[in-house]
């Protein structure tokens, strides 16, 4: 990976162009929602960011498993890069969700299963990064990261399930309106197009960022290697 591969340059431009198109589609082309108005447009990027967060988490868990099986360092690089991207996008998901919630539900936050699960997922990511930061040995760091990402990934659906049951047995808390009533909407065909296009855009963005971060990691490792060689000679 000495010189920037042509494919990456093409990907950069492609992702940039697709993103501009996505902005147009979401902000201008998509129809205005009947009840909520323009604030509903947050939904497109909000869900796409959440999707990338979940995807990144899944990727981390899978390559973690592969690393444990094979021991090859490149899988660990992917895991690390994926987590960093995932933390950012999951955060974007939570914040845009709050922005959408305020005018619709009249509250910044509610203890709905999806919100809580998203927050816990974000906390697991951050814990993952803190775990990695505290370990010196690279092989051990990779192994522990892999183990924790698998444990964390398995716990997320259990968390969602348990909170879901919690909400069905007990009524919604006082103070926020029923989320199912306010804010739910059926998507028209145009909206569906906008929605899937944003999903596609964000996935493309994830791949681009992942590739860049991987190249960065390889370069950082090369620098470390040269530092050690310079120090020892």
């Amino acid at each position, binding site marked *: 990976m000495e010189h920037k591969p042509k494919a990456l340059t093409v990907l950069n431009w492609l992702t940039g162009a697709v993103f501009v198109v996505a902005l147009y589609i979401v902000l201008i082309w998509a129809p205005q929602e009947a009840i909520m108005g323009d604030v509903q447009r947050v939904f497109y990027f909000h869900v796409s960011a959440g999707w990338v967060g979940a995807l990144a988490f899944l990727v981390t868990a899978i390559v973690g498993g592969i690393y444990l099986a094979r021991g090859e360092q490149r899988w660990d690089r992917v895991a690390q890069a994926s987590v960093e991207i995932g933390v950012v996008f999951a955060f974007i998901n939570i914040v845009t969700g709050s922005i959408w919630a305020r005018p619709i539900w009249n509250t910044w936050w509610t203890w709905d299963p999806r919100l809580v699960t998203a927050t816990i997922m974000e906390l697991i990511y951050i814990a993952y990064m803190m775990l990695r930061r*505290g370990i010196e040995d690279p092989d051990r760091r990779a*192994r522990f990261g892999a*183990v924790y990402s698998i*444990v964390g990934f*398995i716990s997320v659906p259990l968390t969602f*399930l*348990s909170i879901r049951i919690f909400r069905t047995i007990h009524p919604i808390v006082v103070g926020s309106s029923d989320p199912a009533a306010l804010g739910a909407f059926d998507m028209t065909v145009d909206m569906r197009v906008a929605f899937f296009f944003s999903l596609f855009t964000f996935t493309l963005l994830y791949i681009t960022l992942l590739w860049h971060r991987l190249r960065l990691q390889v370069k950082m490792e090369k620098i470390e290697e040269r530092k050690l060689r310079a120090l020892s000679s």
Partner: protein
Amino acid sequence: MSEMPPTMNITEQKIEPRANGSLRAYLRSIAAIVWKDLAAEFRSRELIGAMLVFAALVIVVFNFALELDIRTRETVTSGVLWVTFAFAGTLGLNRSMAIEKDRGCLDGLLLAPVDRSAIYFGKAIGNLFFMLIVEAIILPMYSVLYNVNLFQPGLIFVILLGSIGYTAVGTLLASMAVQARTRDVLLPILLFPVLIPLLLAAVKASNGFLQGFEIAEIMPWVNIMIAYDVIFIAVAFMVFDFVVEE
């Protein structure tokens, strides 16, 4: 059978009697590790002492933090209990694994001809014992201080289930956390997000038993706890090797 090469025959003959022996040896190594932990703790009492004092303090703090009048007490008891157990538990887990690492016991265990998973089960069961002992003391303490009867079989069952899941995941994560630089702060950060489904179900199930709800209402929570325990014991059993290998 006569066409088979002689080596295969010998291997087959050797496996049969060894299978039973190795299971017994496996269980014996787990028992040995548990016994080591209990014996060491019995002499020094540092773990249980620390956990107990901390748990007692947490209960006292809760008295000021929440207005525990007669009515609120009933609804809030299970939450207070589980928060207490969760925090005291991290103390015990941290200390238990730190002792292994600092005194080089872990290296000794790894050198022994023992399956790595036996080390995991041994440590986890030892930690479970400590946690149960602390809980066994906290329950009467809380009952007396807040005048509420906590000695109900349903509640005790839930506490047992919850402690099993807690120590199963906690032992695995503590083994990792103790090898990091930020060892003491790291365990709660790693453990609590992953523990949420278990804690939530434990609080709900405890509350159900304490307030005398229908069994049908409590069962979903108990089922979640059982599922959680089974899943995470299996996962920990599979990955523990990677956590302790050098």
